[in-house]
């Protein structure tokens, strides 16, 4: 610190011999404080169920804590590396669970409950949009102190384009996973080992649980690394680019590589389990597991991309700053001399500095003076009619593009007519070519177009046609017969029309949606 710390608080320590110490020691008390804080993080969830009775309407049927935990799950899993989860999307995904709790209630009420829970997790009513719990500890000198613990479960962060996204905080992830006060790395490794064992013993139900936990850990891990990287990117002058940063990046890359290998191994194992499983329930669970592990791998890849970007960015910043010509010296370093020393001060002292800066740093405002005469004029002036349609658009100057198509519309129509075959009577390409020549003897290009269309039909876009609800589709099959033609060579394709079952396709679409 460049700061000599401000005078310490003026609490007078009691004499050491003044009675027995009420706590066994600061270490034990610290553990207690940590657990109290962990406990406090669950309070907002209990509080939801306690307060639902106060809502206008009969809401006791809903399990609010359950919805809240589901919401935290959803936000955590939808949290991308950069931004966060979308508010509306989270509400939409919560709805099925809310609806399942009270199916006979109207959908509008379900949405209201989902929004209520989400807003309470953000704690929209408070200005900080967070929670505060009070707990007591013993200070090192034996006095009992009540302290405020401020925390958030879901926080709102600015995203690109001014949108607001949701992120779960570390506290929330810890509440959710239930592993309070543990080391991120070791917990992740533990979860993965557990998963491997479970899979090798064929206990897929437990394996899914472990895999989900591993994913929470993965998200949490990338979150801590994201923060570390962000700090690294900003910290051009102060960061130890010689040792600490490269070490950090190398460590992180090693970690990603190791996880990647590990999770790929798991993936192979589960895939095998999925393919070999007989029980459809096992098969489904294994398939879900595959998805989860794939998601983990995707997140690691994303993390790795970030790690690789950090180096070049860092060097660019280094170049720009370290090799710039040194300018004239000025005494004041706004960050080092003002901002950094102010932040650790107690609020009542820090405010004097910021007030001084504000008073002298905002410049001037010319005071407004109003004359009654002006005011009357101003009030009596009719509002200006705004032009409703705006200015007239200029006529666009269009240049006709030359028609350079190989075939004309008429030729295409003639060819399509030829190829409009009844579904029960396919024809050979040779026959179609002969008919094209016979019908339009003066048009040498028509057989060529027919041949092209037939070749195109050899690989018909069945999926697209189905999706678009087409009723029939042109197809061509090679049965090994060779084409005997003066102009064209290759196979004498069998060209036909296939009817598509549009009703079944429509049913499939609804299923997929």
């Amino acid at each position, binding site marked *: 610190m*460049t700061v*000599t710390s401000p005078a310490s*608080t003026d609490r007078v320590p009691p004499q050491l011999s003044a009675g027995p110490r009420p706590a066994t020691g600061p270490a034990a008390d*610290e553990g207690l*404080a940590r657990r109290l804080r962990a406990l406090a993080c669950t309070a907002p969830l209990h509080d939801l169920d306690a307060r639902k009775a106060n809502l206008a309407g009969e809401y006791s049927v809903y399990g609010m804590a359950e919805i809240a935990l589901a919401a935290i799950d959803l936000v955590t899993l939808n949290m991308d590396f950069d931004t966060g989860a979308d*508010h509306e999307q989270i509400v939409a995904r919560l709805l099925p669970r809310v609806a399942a709790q009270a199916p006979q209630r109207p959908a509008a009420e379900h949405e209201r409950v989902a929004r209520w829970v989400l807003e309470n997790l953000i704690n*929209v009513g408070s*200005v*900080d949009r*967070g929670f505060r719990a009070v707990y007591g500890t013993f200070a090192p000198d034996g006095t009992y102190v*009540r302290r*405020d613990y*401020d925390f958030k479960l879901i926080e*709102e962060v*600015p995203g690109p384009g*001014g949108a607001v996204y949701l992120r779960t905080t570390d506290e929330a992830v810890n509440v959710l996973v239930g592993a309070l006060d543990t080391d991120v790395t070791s917990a992740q490794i533990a979860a993965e080992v557990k998963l491997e064992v479970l899979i090798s013993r064929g206990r897929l139900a437990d394996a899914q649980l472990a895999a989900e936990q591993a994913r929470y850990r993965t998200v949490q891990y990338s979150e801590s690394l994201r*923060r570390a990287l962000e700090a690294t990117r*900003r*910290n*051009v*002058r*102060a960061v130890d680019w010689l040792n600490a940063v490269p070490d950090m990046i190398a460590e992180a890359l090693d970690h990603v590589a190791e996880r990647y290998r590990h999770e790929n191994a798991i993936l192979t194992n589960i895939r095998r389990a999925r393919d070999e499983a007989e029980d459809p329930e096992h098969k489904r669970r294994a398939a879900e597991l595959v998805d989860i592990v794939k998601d983990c791998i995707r997140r690691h890849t994303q993390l790795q991309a970030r790690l690789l970007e950090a180096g070049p960015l860092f060097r660019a910043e280094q170049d*720009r*700053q370290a090799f710039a010509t*040194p*300018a*004239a*010296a*000025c*005494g*004041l*370093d*706004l*960050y*080092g001399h*003002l*901002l*950094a020393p*102010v*932040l*650790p*001060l*107690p*609020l*009542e*002292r820090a*405010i004097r*500095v910021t*007030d*001084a*800066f*504000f*008073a*002298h*740093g*905002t*410049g*001037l*405002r*010319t005071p407004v003076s109003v004359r009654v005469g002006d005011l009357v004029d101003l009030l009596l002036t009719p509002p200006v009619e705004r032009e409703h349609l705006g200015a007239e658009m200029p006529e666009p100057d269009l240049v006709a593009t030359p028609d350079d198509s190989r075939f004309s519309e008429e030729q295409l129509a003639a060819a399509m007519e030829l190829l409009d075959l009844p579904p029960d009577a396919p024809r050979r390409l040779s026959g179609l070519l002969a008919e094209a020549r016979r019908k339009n003897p003066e048009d040498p290009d028509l057989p060529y177009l027919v041949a092209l269309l037939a070749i195109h039909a050899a690989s018909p876009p069945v999926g697209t046609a189905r999706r678009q609800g087409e009723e029939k589709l042109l197809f061509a099959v090679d049965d090994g017969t060779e084409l005997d033609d003066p102009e064209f060579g290759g196979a004498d394709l069998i060209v036909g029309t296939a009817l598509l079952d549009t009703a079944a396709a429509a049913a499939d679409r609804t299923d997929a949606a």
Partner: protein
Amino acid sequence: MTEHADRNEDGAAAQPSGAVTPADAADAARLVAFGLQPKLQPARDQEYADLLRRYREDPPFARLADAVAAGLGLVVLEVSPRAGMAVTAAEDSVFAVRMSDYARRTSADSGDRFLHGLAHLAVAALAFPRPEDLADDGYIGRVTVNGVDAFVRQACRRLEERAAEQGENTDPVSDAPGLEAAWRVWSRRTATGATKDARRLAGSTTGIVAKAVSFLADSGFLQRTGDDNGGTYRTTARYQLQVRDMAGSAAMAELLELGVVPVTDGTPTLLPPQDTDDLELAADAGLPFHS
């Protein structure tokens, strides 16, 4: 009127005598009036440019203009073609900006008052990240709203991490809000928030920073250049002067009075002083090393 003009010519001819005419006083006041329009650029107004030239070439006129400014309760920071007649409000002048007019909640809530003040300090710190930037007249700083918030949050996070490393319990004592560490006030406030009418949440830290930068833009201190990252701005010569000559030294004096002495070894360097390893510069928002 002719007599007037004659005397003026005489006065100009007999410069050393220093006779001040009402016309001179009008011109001097006019120059100060130009200075009171901070967004007006001398290059865009011929009359303004002429008066500036006269101020620089005609010392008695300069003294007269200074006196007019002082009488109005204004401090002259610089008079130059780039900054124009850069004046700012002296303390207790009618032109001074008061925190209670700036934001309503601040009179009741000291936490809010601190956040607004800190936002202004952080904008300046990010606009001029190195001492050289503040000294270099040609330097143009760039800030974004989200960048400023991220920058302060990063600094807060470092303090939090350091406190955790040292095993300190930074949770403030209940019922003594004044003793809470200042950084906690910023870090526990939400960064942003959804509102019913899709506007920026005024009480969030990005809302507070946005208010600060748009106010500074109205003061002619910043120019808005885009909408990315909550709004991007670049600094003007006036802002540099204001921060360097007024705000920085005033805040510094206050800090010293509190008994906090930022120690430097007297040589401003690129490197931060020993142990300030938490020097955070938000390069993330495209900031701020362009000149």
